[in-house]
């Protein structure tokens, strides 16, 4: 089995600088250590950097060394491929993000490989076959918990793992569970599968590709907190996922992995699927609970929090799909295993959906703390059409705008927050140089205005007024007065809105202004620097 791939730049310039000798040296050293069957060596035909040739890239770590002499090549095999130690002093220097080739400055101790916990079975097993799930470690964690662990131990393990909610806020999952345990009476486990942040479809993949993982996780949560009923609130648009969940529940019941006295224990647990009917706001947990009770999806006042008074007024744990998918492996492998991945403050992995101006779009799961530069270069295959990176937008519409300055910030909840950005739900919309920030903000605000539930005034009126101001700027009628008003309303809306939707709606404007103020100001003069907005079209016609 191939465990590593070594790529050596083989373009004419690299060859003229001795790439062939480097390749021979690497191959000789590999055979010296007897690694031929595990490591594949090949030429990279196209490298777009000329300053560090020849380069040597090693996957799956995604480390780039360069320039590499034949002696360095032999040393790399010895240290990196044989002993597993990255060699910092041979790392290629970082460069700006352009072109379609991955150049990564390596970091000591960092794991670059895509690490799958949550998505480890998606696409590997047949989601409609419970036996396939079981043969891939399925329901082992539940069996282990029921046979060997007290509910308190399950709770303590989750607490010790430091797992944080993956829906966007990053609240410690174990802590949330312990709030519910303290409450008397009947309790509920609710899974928030109302994935509707624009650009996020990670939960859909779990729901469609590995539905039993979610059921097992909910049963574990139920066992830990003392609940006997779980509800999955799934968005109305996810018809296939709903169908698969229902099928999975039926299969699990047949094998007594759900239902009464699971696996002969004293623990009984049932799961119901409830589909929504199209409302972004229902991703907010209290609005979700309202909708689950058959009402308009309007947020509730807090406190009391759902952990005290949630579904049907009872203490309720509401967890995101990705969060729950981490629970079975944590119970199975222990908290220490989980904490060995990611960062100190945010252990584990994060699933991202990468979109926009990158060569490869789609889902990627990486350890927490991986930087945006690494994600774009390694998994995104670099920027599309050689565009320069302008900004990224995280966490769907409620994420923040990340400028080039923050490309090297480790992506975890705390580090992002310290940099004034938000990790959000896991969407990564990568925008190249030809993206207009005003236009981007306009589209995001159009979404929020449409999805505002109308309950509170700051959000209902604020989103409309911000959209109006952005529309004027886009069309070229806007003035400095509009820009000032936009900024003012953005702050009021953020401060005064009732729930997360209204508090998040102005964030693209606030962060956009923080990093790209000149671009907004250009629009007050009727100029769109990227030529995207309608105002620039008018100009062209005029001349």
């Amino acid at each position, binding site marked *: 089995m191939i465990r590593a791939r070594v790529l050596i730049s083989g373009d004419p310039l690299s060859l003229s600088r001795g790439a062939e000798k480097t390749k021979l040296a690497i191959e000789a050293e590999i055979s010296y250590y007897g690694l031929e069957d595990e490591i594949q060596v090949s030429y990279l035909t196209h490298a777009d950097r000329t300053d560090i040739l020849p380069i040597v890239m090693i996957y799956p770590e995604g480390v780039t060394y360069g320039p590499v002499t034949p002696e360095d090549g032999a040393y790399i095999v010895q240290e990196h491929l044989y002993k597993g130690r990255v060699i910092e002093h041979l790392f290629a220097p970082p460069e700006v993000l352009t072109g379609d080739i991955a150049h990564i400055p390596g970091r000591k101790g960092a794991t670059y490989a895509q690490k799958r916990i949550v998505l480890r079975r998606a696409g590997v097993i047949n989601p409609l076959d419970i036996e396939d799930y079981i043969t891939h470690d399925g329901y082992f964690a539940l069996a282990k918990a029921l046979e060997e662990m007290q509910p308190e131990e399950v709770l303590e393990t989750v607490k010790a793992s430091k797992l944080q909610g993956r829906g966007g806020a990053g609240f410690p999952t174990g802590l949330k569970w312990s709030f519910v345990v303290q409450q008397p009476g009947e309790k509920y486990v609710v899974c928030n599968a109302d994935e509707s942040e*624009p650009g996020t479809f990670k939960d*859909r993949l779990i729901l469609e590709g590995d539905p039993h993982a979610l059921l097992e996780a909910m049963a574990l949560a139920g066992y830990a907190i003392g609940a006997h009923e779980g509800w999955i609130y799934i968005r*109305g648009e996810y018809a296939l996922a709903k169908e698969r969940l229902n099928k999975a529940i039926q299969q699990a019941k047949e094998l007594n992995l759900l239902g009464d006295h699971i696996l002969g224990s004293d623990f009984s647990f049932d799961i119901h699927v409830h589909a929504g009917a199209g409302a972004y706001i229902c991703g907010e947990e209290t609005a979700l609970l309202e909708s689950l009770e058959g009402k308009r999806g309007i947020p509730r006042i807090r406190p009391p929090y759902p952990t005290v008074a949630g579904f049907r007024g009872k203490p309720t744990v509401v967890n995101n799909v990705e969060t729950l998918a981490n629970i079975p492996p944590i119970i199975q492998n222990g908290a220490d295993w989980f904490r060995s991945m990611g960062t100190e403050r945010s252990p584990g992995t994060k699933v991202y959906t990468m979109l*926009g*101006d990158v060569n490869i779009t789609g889902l990627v799961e990486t350890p927490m703390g991986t930087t945006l530069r690494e994600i774009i270069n390694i998994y995104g295959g670099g920027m599309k059409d050689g565009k320069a990176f302008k900004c990224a937008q995280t966490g*769907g519409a409620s994420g923040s705008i990340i400028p080039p300055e923050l490309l090297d910030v480790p992506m975890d909840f705390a580090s992002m927050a310290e940099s004034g950005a938000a990790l959000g739900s896991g969407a990564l919309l990568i925008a190249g140089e030809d993206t207009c920030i005003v236009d*981007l903000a306009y*589209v995001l605000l*159009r979404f929020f205005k*449409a999805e505002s539930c109308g309950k509170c005034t700051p959000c209902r009126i604020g989103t409309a007024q911000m959209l109006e101001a952005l529309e004027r700027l886009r069309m070229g009628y806007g003035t400095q007065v509009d820009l000032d008003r936009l900024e003012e309303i953005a702050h009021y809306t953020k401060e005064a809105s009732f729930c997360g939707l209204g508090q998040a709606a102005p964030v693209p404007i606030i962060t956009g202004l923080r990093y790209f103020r000149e671009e907004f100001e250009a629009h007050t003069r009727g100029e769109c620097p990227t030529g995207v907005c309608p105002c620039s079209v008018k100009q062209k016609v005029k001349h």
Partner: protein
Amino acid sequence: MDAQLAQQTDEVIKHYGTDAEALVEILRDLNQIAGHLSPEHLLLIAQRLNLPSSKVYSVASFYSLINIKPLGRHVIRFCEDAPCHVAGGREVWEALEQELGIPFGETTPDRQWSLLTTSCIGACAVGPVMMIDDEIYGNLTPEKVHEILTQYREADKGGAV
């Protein structure tokens, strides 16, 4: 017509029961069967679930997958979110309006097409994306929009759809 309406409604209610908690699901499923929910539908549901009709109306009008107005023969739901927008959605948006001769949110006078927007449908990797009825079409361009709509029109003429 009324008998059919009552039958449709009762079938859905039979599946979910008459607990008020099931209201959203009942409305959504019935909408799918009936195409849209008429005032008669809403009134009947209110009676069966023993709820004020104002409450049933308020819930029905809240959710985007529940229509309280009749729509065209085909319903286009175009994703208006940022990922689709930056992937060329703006041009496709304009092409759709031009092609059908109506702005978003409206139905053509011949009642063949309704042009609506939708928020993210989770197919962002192939954006821009639209749904026509239950079919998803991705990687759209203005030319492709023309092609797809022409196919539907021709199929309708031939009576195939």
